[in-house]
């Protein structure tokens, strides 16, 4: 309890971070408790087709009579899962790659650095599209592919951290004590250099959610789950007389991505001593 209080006080004045975290907590609660919060099942078809927002259906219904509000709540699960897991994959790959490159230096680093540069130049979104098209569009595939294509930014950050950390006395003294290089990377370099990566990963969650939404919009998402991008795609067909489906789905995406960007920015501001007290 005191740990939470300590962190809360440290965030004094950092409205972005505080607001973001509160909203995130609410969001996670919604996603977890989804089945209890949906007034109607998200997949429940009904005869009330394309009804505008009203008393019975707060956000209207779609062309199959499904309640938009319920669908939005259900869709939060997909977005959160894909976003977080994809970003985690990105973080793990990027951090290890960057830490190894930065700590070892020399020829290995030169090569690894160029690999990072090359990867950043490849149009990864299309790679994602092709892979999903070829290998199937299950949610698992989507998560893995997004994770495998966005790690360079984390790698770059971690590499810079590793390069500056390896000159620090405590790293040198760990070497003197007899720690193996592997050990040094995982016990000393990564834990001490991870902070900017955390901020970046949070932004990556937002990015992953947008990518997933784009994929679903193009019809390449998992057809078995309710996804907001998919809703926009479907809603596009009847945008004129059923605008609420696409509109609210898009707003939902906007809000969830906004939350993560707020948190990411908040963490960055927190780390910078110059902007901490505002």
């Amino acid at each position, binding site marked *: 309890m005191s740990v939470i209080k300590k962190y809360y006080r440290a965030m004094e004045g950092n409205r972005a971070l505080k607001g973001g975290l509160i909203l995130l907590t609410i969001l996670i609660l919604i996603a977890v408790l989804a089945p209890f919060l949906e007034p109607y099942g998200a997949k429940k078809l009904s005869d009330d087709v394309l009804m505008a927002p009203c008393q019975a259906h707060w956000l209207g219904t779609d062309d199959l009579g499904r309640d938009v509000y319920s669908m939005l709540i259900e869709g939060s699960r997909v977005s959160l899962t894909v976003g977080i897991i994809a970003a985690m994959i990105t973080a793990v790959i990027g951090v290890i790659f960057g830490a190894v490159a930065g700590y070892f230096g020399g020829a290995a680093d030169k090569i690894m650095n160029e690999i990072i540069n090359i990867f950043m130049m490849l149009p990864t979104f299309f790679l994602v599209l092709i892979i999903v098209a070829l290998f199937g569009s299950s949610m698992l595939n989507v998560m893995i592919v997004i994770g495998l294509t966005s790690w360079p930014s984390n790698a770059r950050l971690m590499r810079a951290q590793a390069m500056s950390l390896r000159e620090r*006395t*405590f790293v*040198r*003294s760990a*070497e*003197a*004590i007899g720690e193996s290089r592997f050990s040094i990377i995982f016990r*000393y370099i990564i834990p*001490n250099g991870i902070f900017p990566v955390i901020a970046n990963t949070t932004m990556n969650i937002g990015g992953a959610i947008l990518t997933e939404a784009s994929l679903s919009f193009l019809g390449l998402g998992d057809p078995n789950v309710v996804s907001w991008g998919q809703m926009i795609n479907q809603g596009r067909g009847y945008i004129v007389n059923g605008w609420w489906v696409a509109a609210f789905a898009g707003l939902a995406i906007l809000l969830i991505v906004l939350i993560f960007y707020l948190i990411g920015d908040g963490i960055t501001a927190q780390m910078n001593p110059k902007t901490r007290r505002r």
Partner: protein
Amino acid sequence: MAYLEAEHLCKKYMVRGSNGKSFLQAVDDVNFSLEQGEILGVIGESGCGKSTLGRMLIGLEPITSGRVTYDGRKLEGLMKEDLRRFRGMAQMVFQNPFDTFPPKQTMQNILLRVMKIHHIGADKEERRQRCLRLLEEAGLKPAEDFLNRYPHELSGGQLQRLSIVRSMMLSPSFLVADEPVSMLDVSVRADIINMLMDIRKKKNTAMVFISHDLATTRYISDRIVVMYLGRIVESGGTDQVLHNPQHPYTKALLSYCGSVDPREKREQVEVPGEAFAGAGERSGCSFAPRCFMACGRCFREQPRMETVEEGHRAACHCMGGKSKTE
């Protein structure tokens, strides 16, 4: 054969300038030997290569050329054969006690980890007991308290003591102390120095004590080596070098340091300019541009170490009052 021998040690750094590649000679042809239980003091200004030398001796910095032997066995061989055991044998105490320990771990974690790596002690509890004992012996009481602290909660003196305890846990036969007291308050320095001397007495550990402070070095060292821009310019017994300095640089250093022997009257020696380690080849003595005794030969020919008296050598063309002019 001495316990530790350094022969023709050199360290070159490649430097990329705006007009192509060049190199920086950080350590140039360093030779010395050290016996068990002996403390060698290394003196010089910042940038003279003494820290680099210290790191080279225990394999933390790769050697460009030359060799280091322990009891006749080459450093590279020892490291390749069993790196961990070598590390247990040769330890280092660093200049900055505030940064020596990883910031987010407790002292218990840090110290127990060392034992774990080197398979000292059967289990966590036994290691902990050992730790407590060592801390008490080092004067860190109550030991229990210290174990639970984070590095940022401790003072410089305490941290440096802990650093020494950590190194000595492995019972090394050789210890490099790289300016161990430079960042500490003057009042605390004596404690640390005494601690080191105590260790030497009890465990017969050979030590290299690196410093830019003559007073402390004199107190602890048996022999002294004076470095300038990567080269040894004078070496010998502590008293020999400090009471009968031969090299102009040593003379200049001593003239500034009144505390060595306040009874002796010394003239302040003027040494203009700053030591600048330029990249590239150097011809002639590296101290010549600032030397008050320099002559033509000094700029052309690199002086070699010559014996002044038994055990005392210096590298200067113009020693002993006779200036070999040209």
